[in-house]
């Protein structure tokens, strides 16, 4: 085991596509951890979905050995951090397992919203920040300008900022030397009681939960009894190891080490990111500070298209939760959609990933309802006051009983070329944003800060942001607080029947407009039926919009001799296949898109 002074624990923080994974690959090569031949592109991202989207969802760690210019062999632990806004807490815990961070910025694109949000997180953890410009080999790179904006941001003199090309490997060795020089070695007390920080865990169907941890103080021996301090759960450390490209067993993990622990842990809920592991005997008195339970911010109903698949959906969600403790779900019923689950997500990306995995990995036909946030509603009923938590529009109390409604607000950072600033201000104002500040990062790029209701971000904000800025603006947000808002429930009636799954909670000022557009959109999306179907939107008792879907004029095969009935049956089967994504609401067939209609309303 190396001395702590020979260890460097670090991470790379970067905006999406700024080349983090490519740089990680180069490091693996330079340290001989993996041969070039074995190199799969972007080795650290091993879920298909991650590779496809070019983002890292789950963090991993890898241990490398590097012989530095001073002739010493160093152990480098690269802890990979998730690169997206939804996983802020996970990022902060991964950062806490490090002493330094490489702040990687694309020399062509410059500073982006995630660069800044991740930088603040790293500074909060007192990490040594090494700014590095990537992609300097690109003809469109503008390293001097980006270096200047980095100087303005963190105070590092522009001329000292190191430049690399992760693609060609240029500057990578120098960067490693720089890191060994500047990132402090771990400073834990090897003789103190064990304190190890969990920064990730994955589920292995044979071994149970595999916990990734950084030992801060003390050491853990194979076979020792350990305790998770937040929930006092105890397990034996059956196997310890370090992470090369696979797991490599060791007998002891010492202060400063990064590795994994296996202990027949069936329930991943027991191994929460941010928790502290100590030993059962002579354990630490205090955990590493900063542990918190992550709370879902965005909720959506997920229903099987066919009610018979309810149990399949439940088991799929159970399996997903094994690897993703932040996923929450509970059964709910909807008059329109039958039995399903209300699922809680950390954010929109998290939601999309889960929906896609249900579809792809479990081959489930699901209907998802419009995502919404968690509201706090003060009610007064029969003279009694109460506060209820509403994460589903159908649970909204009766409008007569509501005293006040509170919704989550976030602080959003938007970084954009200055050309689009007008569009973006307009967007934020439309979304009930409260202007914060505006700051020039360099001659072309502006950082815009707004306080926005999370509910407005959940409604298609990101796509609109990209479209009004031609894809150039980047965006990140962080929850700040709950604030009172004048919110009402907009109910949609199909064929005179209120359809719970189509109802939404909207601001009163927008309710009329949203109701009108939603009714119009639903008219387009719901196919014609045998009879006229009215679509209405109402607030309380007041109908604010009405559209009518005309009836089918003719839907009958004229020729249907007895002998033809097999042909007819084949036709029905095809139709049934086509109706898989339809839900019967009363006697009306409603396609899946209709339940998301509110997301695709035209902004005219």
């Amino acid at each position, binding site marked *: 085991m190396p001395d702590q002074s020979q260890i460097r624990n670090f991470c790379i923080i970067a905006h999406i596509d700024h080349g983090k994974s490519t740089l990680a690959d180069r490091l693996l090569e330079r340290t001989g951890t993996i041969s070039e031949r074995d190199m799969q592109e972007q080795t650290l991202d091993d879920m298909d979905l991650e590779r496809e989207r070019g983002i890292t969802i789950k963090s991993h760690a890898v241990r490398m050995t590097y012989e530095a210019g001073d002739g010493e062999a160093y152990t480098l632990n690269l802890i990979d951090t998730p690169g997206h806004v939804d996983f802020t807490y996970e990022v902060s815990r991964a950062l806490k397992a490090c002493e330094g961070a490489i702040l990687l910025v694309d020399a062509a694109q410059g500073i982006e919203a995630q660069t800044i949000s991740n930088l603040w997180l790293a500074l909060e953890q007192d990490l040594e920040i090494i700014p590095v410009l990537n992609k300097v080999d690109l003809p469109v790179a503008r390293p001097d300008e980006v270096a200047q904006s980095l100087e303005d941001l963190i105070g590092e003199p522009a001329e000292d900022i190191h430049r690399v090309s992760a693609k060609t490997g240029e500057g990578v060795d120098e960067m490693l030397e720089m890191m060994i020089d500047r990132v402090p070695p771990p400073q834990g007390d090897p003789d103190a009681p064990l304190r190890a920080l969990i920064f990730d865990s994955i589920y292995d169907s044979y071994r149970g939960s595999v916990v990734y941890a950084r030992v801060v103080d003390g050491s853990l021996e194979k076979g020792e009894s350990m305790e998770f301090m937040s929930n006092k759960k105890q397990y034996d450390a059956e196997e310890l190891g370090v992470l090369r490209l696979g797991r490599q067993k060791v007998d002891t993990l010492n202060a400063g080490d990064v590795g994994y622990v296996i202990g027949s842990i069936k329930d991943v809920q027991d191994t929460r990111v941010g928790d502290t592991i100590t030993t059962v005997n002579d354990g630490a008195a205090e955990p590493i500070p900063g542990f918190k339970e992550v709370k879902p911010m965005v909720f959506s109903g997920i229903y099987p298209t066919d009610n018979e698949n309810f149990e399949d959906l439940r088991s799929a969600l159970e399996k997903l939760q094994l690897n993703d403790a932040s996923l929450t779900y509970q059964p709910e019923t909807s008059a329109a959609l039958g039995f399903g689950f209300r699922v809680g997500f950390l954010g929109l990306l998290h939601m999309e990933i889960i929906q896609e995995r249900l579809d792809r990995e479990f081959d489930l036909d699901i209907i998802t309802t419009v995502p919404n946030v968690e509201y706090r509603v003060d009610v007064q009923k029969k003279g009694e006051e109460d506060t209820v938590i509403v994460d589903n529009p159908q649970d909204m109390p009766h409008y007569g009983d509501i005293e006040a409604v509170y919704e989550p607000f976030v602080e959003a950072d938007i970084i954009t070329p200055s050309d689009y600033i007008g569009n973006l201000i307009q967007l934020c104002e439309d979304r009930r944003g409260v202007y914060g500040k505006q700051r020039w990062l360099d001659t072309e790029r502006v950082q815009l800060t707004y306080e926005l209701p999370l509910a407005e971000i959940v409604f298609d904000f990101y796509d609109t942001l990209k479209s009004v800025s031609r894809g150039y603006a980047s965006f990140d947000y962080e929850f700040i607080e709950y604030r009172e808002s004048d919110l009402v429930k907009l109910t949609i009636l199909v064929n005179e029947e209120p359809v719970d799954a189509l109802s939404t909670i909207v601001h009163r000022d927008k309710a009329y407009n949203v109701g009108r557009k939603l009714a119009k959109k639903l008219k387009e999306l719901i196919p014609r039926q*045998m009879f006229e179907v009215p679509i209405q939107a109402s607030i309380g008792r007041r109908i604010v919009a009405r559209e009518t879907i005309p009836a*089918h004029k*003719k839907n*009958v095969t*004229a*020729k249907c001799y*007895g002998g*033809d009935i097999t042909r*007819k049956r084949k036709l029905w089967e095809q139709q049934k296949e086509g109706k898989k994504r339809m839900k019967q609401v009363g006697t009306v067939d409603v396609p899946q898109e209709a339940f998301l209609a509110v997301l695709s309303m035209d902004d005219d």
Partner: protein
Amino acid sequence: MAGLYVHIPFRRASRTYDDAFTTVSGAEAFPEYAAALERELIYYAQQHASDEPIETVYAGGGRPSLFSLANVRNVLQTVLNVFDGSTIREATAEVNPADATPSTLSALRSVGFDRLQFDVLSFFPDDLDAIQTPHTAQEAVRAIREARQAGFESLSVDLLFGWPGQPMKHWQANLEQAVDMNLPHVTLVEWTGDRSDFSGTPGADGTDAAAPAAGGEGGETAAAATTQREAEVRTAKQLQTAMEILTGEGYEQYELTHFAQTGHASEHQKNYYAHGNYLGVGASAHSFWWRQRMQSIPARRWANVRDVPRYQQLLSQQYPPISFRETVDWATLADEYITLRLRTREGLDLRRLRAEYGRNLQDEKASLLDTLVENGLAETDDRTYLRLTPRGLLVADGITERLTR
């Protein structure tokens, strides 16, 4: 009762206006086909003779009237040998007006046919040109006159609707013509050809929508959807017009596309729509046989090979000429029964559906039944019968689909 269908798939040239299985051939092919039909009747159809009497015979296909009379006589004789001839109440022959010579008609009459079905399609020469029929309008009128002279009382004509560019005025006039000629039975046939290779010219009456084939190469989906919607509106209107004219003149619409004066409804057709048993002989013919109508006894459905030489070869080697067979489960039988009965004037007997098919629509689909009645699509007698209104008939497939899932 049960029906017997004899498929005679011959014709002289390919045609645009339907998709029934036919084959183009000359007279030299007939004797061998007739022999094969006889073999099928003797080897296979006969097995069912003791289950249930055959009460109707229907000879149809491409243009069965091309078949030589000697062959027809032989086949019919075999039918009478195989089944009990005394139970046969109706024998229909499909005849193309071009083949309806006095000698053919009287021969058909003499071998025992008592009902004729003419593929008239339209009484307008330019319509017939557009859809490329083998017969002319004149031949159609003459065929009907000759049939009456030969002693046929039960006559039926097929009238074609829904073809691209069909003038609405012609359609109306065709229906009125059938009424004026006092034809006791009219069958409506919807054009099912492929719209893309239809080369018909729009009718003289320019007010109707232009033939979609004219702008075929555009191929945009929005345009196609519009065309489809226009076609839907047009065919709906045509069906509606037919219902109004014919029922207004005392015809009963005993099934969606079948209209008859009192006493002239086709028993053979009625049997199909009653989910009755039928045997089909000949290439591509379908059969359905459910003995005793009990859940414990399997219902069978089968279809013959389509290829005529293959059909003949199998039978000559004493193999069954079958290409498809299935046992129809009870739930599917209920679906079929609902589908067929909803198209009829008598309607769907909900009590029978429950007793014989184990499907309780009164309870399972109570709210849908209410909705159908409230919206004027169906009527129900005290919840024992469900009968579609004229408006309901136009969307019968949509209603069936909802009732059967």
